[in-house]
């Protein structure tokens, strides 16, 4: 009787796995096609959201300022072997202390953050944090969760109105990622900064200073999207102890000079007039 049971069990098990194995060779989903489709949509989505931001805010075009920020980006990317060219930085004139990642590796940095940062290392910390969100695909995960896949397809396909695109952008600029994702991005930032010979303490300092500045409305932007700042500043300091690193200056230009360049730029550059999707 036992032999009969075992034989039956083996046949049952084999037939289950055989059916599963057989069916798994049917191409229900073409992964390559799916990835390509997703990439195209993500690219379009990134362009549309960026367009909705730049139609209402001035985009900083000063090459010197871009060179400074790009040099920080290159320093961060190189250590983690991230393709520097895929990350597209956009500096936007806005007094909010904020920076955020958009789909397709666009990173928006508000001038408010540059002006508030005590040194370039703090900006490098924020950039490393945002690159962490990009590398871990948090941006698309957040949009799928909060906006929904169908709506994202509609936006990417040009079937959604300008207001919906604007609101989607707002989800990314003023909505927090979940706690786990923020911690992951923090961890990524600390590791990247340490490997780039930038003291992660600076990022911790920025977090701490922002948490103390709740009375300043501009400070609320990045801090509202990055809750538990005090705890996270403490975590960053704790985590940085896992690494041994040097501390090389991030840029050669004096930081105050970069800030002055921003102010000078503000007095000569007019608002960009690229028409938004609704105007086309």
């Amino acid at each position, binding site marked *: 009787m036992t032999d009969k049971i075992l034989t039956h069990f083996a046949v049952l098990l084999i037939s289950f796995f055989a059916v599963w194995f057989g069916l798994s060779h*049917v191409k229900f*989903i073409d*992964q390559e096609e799916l990835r390509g489709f997703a990439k195209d949509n993500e690219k379009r989505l990134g362009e549309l959201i960026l367009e909705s931001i730049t139609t209402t805010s001035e985009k900083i075009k000063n090459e010197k300022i871009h060179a400074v920020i790009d040099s920080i980006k290159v320093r961060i990317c190189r250590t983690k072997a991230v393709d520097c060219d895929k990350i597209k930085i956009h500096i936007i004139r806005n007094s909010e202390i904020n920076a955020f990642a958009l789909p397709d590796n666009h990173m928006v940095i508000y001038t408010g953050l540059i002006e508030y940062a005590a040194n370039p290392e703090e900006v490098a910390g924020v950039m490393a944090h945002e690159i962490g969100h990009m590398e871990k695909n948090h941006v698309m995960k957040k949009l799928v969760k909060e906006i929904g896949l169908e709506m994202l397809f509609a936006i990417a396909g040009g079937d959604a109105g300008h207001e919906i695109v604007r609101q989607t952008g707002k989800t990314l600029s003023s909505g927090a990622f979940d706690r786990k994702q923020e911690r992951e991005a923090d961890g990524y930032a600390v590791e990247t900064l340490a490997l780039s010979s930038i003291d992660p303490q600076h990022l911790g300092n920025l977090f701490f200073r922002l948490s103390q500045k709740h009375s300043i409305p501009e400070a609320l932007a990045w801090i509202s999207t990055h809750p538990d700042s005090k705890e996270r500043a403490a975590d960053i300091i704790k985590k940085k102890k896992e690494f041994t690193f040097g501390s090389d200056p991030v840029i050669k230009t004096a930081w105050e000079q970069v800030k002055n360049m921003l102010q000078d730029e503000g007095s000569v550059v007019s608002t960009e007039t690229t028409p938004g999707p609704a105007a086309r």
Partner: protein
Amino acid sequence: MSETIAFPYKPDDYEAEKASNSYLMSVVAVIAGLPLPIINLVATAIFFLGNRKGSYFVRWHCTQALLSQLTVLGMNSAGFYWTLSIILANKSLTNDYIAYMITIVLFNLVEFVATIYAAIQTRKGKHVAWWFFGPLTETICKP
């Protein structure tokens, strides 16, 4: 798949009804609790416990129904948690996942049809032993 074999005695109408209900219980619970793979097992287990001191014929069929539900639970739970991980933990949708889901749907269908068939046959007082579960029940359930 299943065969009608001779039972040591001829069950009366009351026993046939109870034995048949043990199968119907899992069918009804499957319909009631389709998204949760545990409900049909719980219903069958409660019915089994309620009849563990019943006649041999009733106990035998309760045991066979319970064993089949346990097997289905194992398959369905894996599919259920795989689905949850795709929805909540952002795991990617793969061919393997779709193939697994189709496989468990097929096996559930076979089990569903076999359960209905067994419910009808046992109601007539016939002793239906399923492939694998029949011999296994024979080993576990003694007169």
